[in-house]
């Protein structure tokens, strides 16, 4: 082989060998549905009894020495700051009288996950749960069992013992999902801004969700972050161009999100949050001024529906959820002024707003929250000023535990927007100061 053929061969091999390698994401599952399939699922009221701070008696290599356990519909979540880890588990009473809590654990930033199978250790407590009771937790309440790596059968001991109650967080401290349960670079198996990642966000520690709103060519607000249908976020050989270039029909026919999900409309996403989750609010990050009025209409319609539900005589359908229109800059603020005028002229109640950049504007515009970027520092004086005016402060976007600690201690905010919800929730439980309950204000 002469010089030039060798050179070109090396070059071609180099070019071809640098092809992208995509990590396969696999969420571990028990074969045939595990023991949960054979049991009777615990009710929502019973799941509340599992909440608390738990000491890790065995298994600290997985979850550290202490974990937070919180629940959502059908789910018991173990949340830790160790590698931003979490476990998403279900609970059921088995035919033999035991109560099993099983599912998977994951470190979302790594390709590390496995199975977890725990049992309620105290026979009396298990019997009470199987009788449909909801016994209050005590220091005797212990979950004992095993965990594994990947899909291996769990054999490594894991024991959690209830230690103390969680600090108040529902309606008080908001762990806000950064367009979903985890970041785009994570291995959660769900795409940012998809319905699936919003569902996941609640299971990994969030009680509100931030979503990115863009407009289609036919003026329908959808959830998508980038202006362009970039390869990092979507799939489909015919999925090209900008979101604003395509109609919803074209988007739906041409594109899926990275893990095969549909690109949801804002209305679908809010409906899902209200119906399928206990999330308390949504932060609509308006990416374009054109999206403000249509988003405000969707939010206003939802609020009107919720108001009717909450004011009727049937308390069983009550649901408290607040969508907030996020205003990141002056252009969107101008669009917000127009949207407010339009809705008021039509006799429609204006939804609440959040301003990201100027705390004084939050109060003068009558918004319910301030959403500063973390890069401007903890700004404790501004947090206090906004709170004194009856509004909340949510910093974005904090994903590192040392920064989270600094903001929790110095700023004492009402919430943090994050892609590491398990860590933020757990750090709040460890060192956070419970924000005051603001009447009438919501995220």
């Amino acid at each position, binding site marked *: 082989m002469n010089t030039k053929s060798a*050179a070109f061969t090396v070059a071609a091999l180099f070019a071809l060998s640098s092809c992208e390698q995509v990590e396969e994401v696999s969420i571990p599952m028990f074969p045939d549905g595990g023991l949960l399939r054979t049991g009777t699922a615990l009710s929502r009221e019973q799941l509340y009894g599992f909440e608390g701070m738990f000491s890790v008696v065995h298994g600290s290599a997985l979850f550290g020495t202490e974990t937070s356990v919180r629940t959502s519909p059908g789910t018991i979540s173990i949340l830790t700051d160790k590698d931003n880890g979490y476990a998403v588990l279900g609970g059921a009473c088995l035919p033999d009288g035991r109560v099993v809590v099983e599912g998977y654990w994951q470190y979302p930033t790594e390709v590390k996950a496995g199975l977890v199978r725990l049992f309620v250790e105290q026979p009396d407590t298990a019997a009470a749960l199987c009788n449909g009771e909801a016994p209050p937790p005590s220091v005797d309440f212990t979950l004992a069992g095993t965990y594994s790596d990947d899909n291996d059968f769990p054999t490594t001991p894991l024991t959690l013992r209830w230690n103390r109650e969680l600090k108040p967080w529902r309606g008080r401290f908001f762990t806000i999902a950064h367009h979903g349960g985890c970041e785009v670079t994570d291995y959660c198996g769900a795409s940012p801004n998809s319905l699936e990642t919003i569902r996941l966000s609640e299971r990994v520690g969030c009680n509100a969700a931030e979503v990115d709103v863009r407009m289609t060519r036919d003026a*329908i607000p959808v959830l998508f972050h980038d202006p362009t249908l970039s390869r990092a976020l979507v799939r489909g050989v015919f*999925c090209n161009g900008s979101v604003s270039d395509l109609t919803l029909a074209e988007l739906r026919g041409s594109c899926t999100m990275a893990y095969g999900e549909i690109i949801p409309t804002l209305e679908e996403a809010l409906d899902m949050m209200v119906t399928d989750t206990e999330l308390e609010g949504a932060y609509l990050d308006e990416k374009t001024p054109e999206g403000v009025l249509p988003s405000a209409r969707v939010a206003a319609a939802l609020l009107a529906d919720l108001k009717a539900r909450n004011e009727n005589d049937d308390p069983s359908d009550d649901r408290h959820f607040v969508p907030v229109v996020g205003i990141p800059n002056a252009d969107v603020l101008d669009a917000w002024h127009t949207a407010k005028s339009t809705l008021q002229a039509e006799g429609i109640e204006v939804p609440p707003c959040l301003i990201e950049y100027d705390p004084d504007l939050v109060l003068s515009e009558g918004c319910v929250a301030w959403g500063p970027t973390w890069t401007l520092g903890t700004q404790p004086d501004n947090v206090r000023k906004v709170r004194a005016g009856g509004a909340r402060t949510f910093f974005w976007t904090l994903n590192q535990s040392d920064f989270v600690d600094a903001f929790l201690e110095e700023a004492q905010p009402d919430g943090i927007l994050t892609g590491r919800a398990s860590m933020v929730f757990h750090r709040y439980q460890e060192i956070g100061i419970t924000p005051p309950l603001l009447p009438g204000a919501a995220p």
Partner: protein
Amino acid sequence: MSLGRAALSLFTVAAILGAAASARAADTADGSASDSSTSAAPSSLEVSALVGMSVTQGEPAYTAATTSFRRVGVYSELGVGYRSSYFIDPFISVGYGALASADTKLPDGEWGSAGTLHQNLGVWFISPGITSDIWRFRLRLGIGIAIVKESNTFHSDKNTATQKPLAAQLGLGFNCYETHRFRLDFDLRYVKAQGADVSFGLFGVTARGDLLTFGGGN
């Protein structure tokens, strides 16, 4: 392949080929044996035209709802290159391909009643690059801009969206016919527009002719 890595690859190629060319020039200066056919060929400004069949990688988003999918298309290209007496020849080319089409059924939705979405994918590709002739083979590397055009028709509403990602090409040609100022090649190419998730292979015929010649070589 990330665009950064593609660019790095091309720079690496250029560096390797540049070093090889320098070594070759030094060999010639020393009076050692050199490729007499190369040294005898005059430099020229060469124009080229390619017509070929493309095969597009990837799948429609919803294969279950896609009633027809055609991934075989047509690609044509015009180019200008400088045919030097060294073995690296720079070029710039502009091509267009009608790459793929599909029909996808949509259910009732916010867009109205159910219907069929007709989808067409085309691409303009403007690419500078380098070629190198090794015996009758011609290797080709290029990086440029793709203008990806997505044309849709739904309920008689026609719409086109465009995207302009960086794109890279890698090619191998075989010279099957050559006269003094004209050459005919069979070409295999691979083009990848990273940002748009569009990549396609290409098999075509390239006609090349010297527009201008410059002396009789070095």
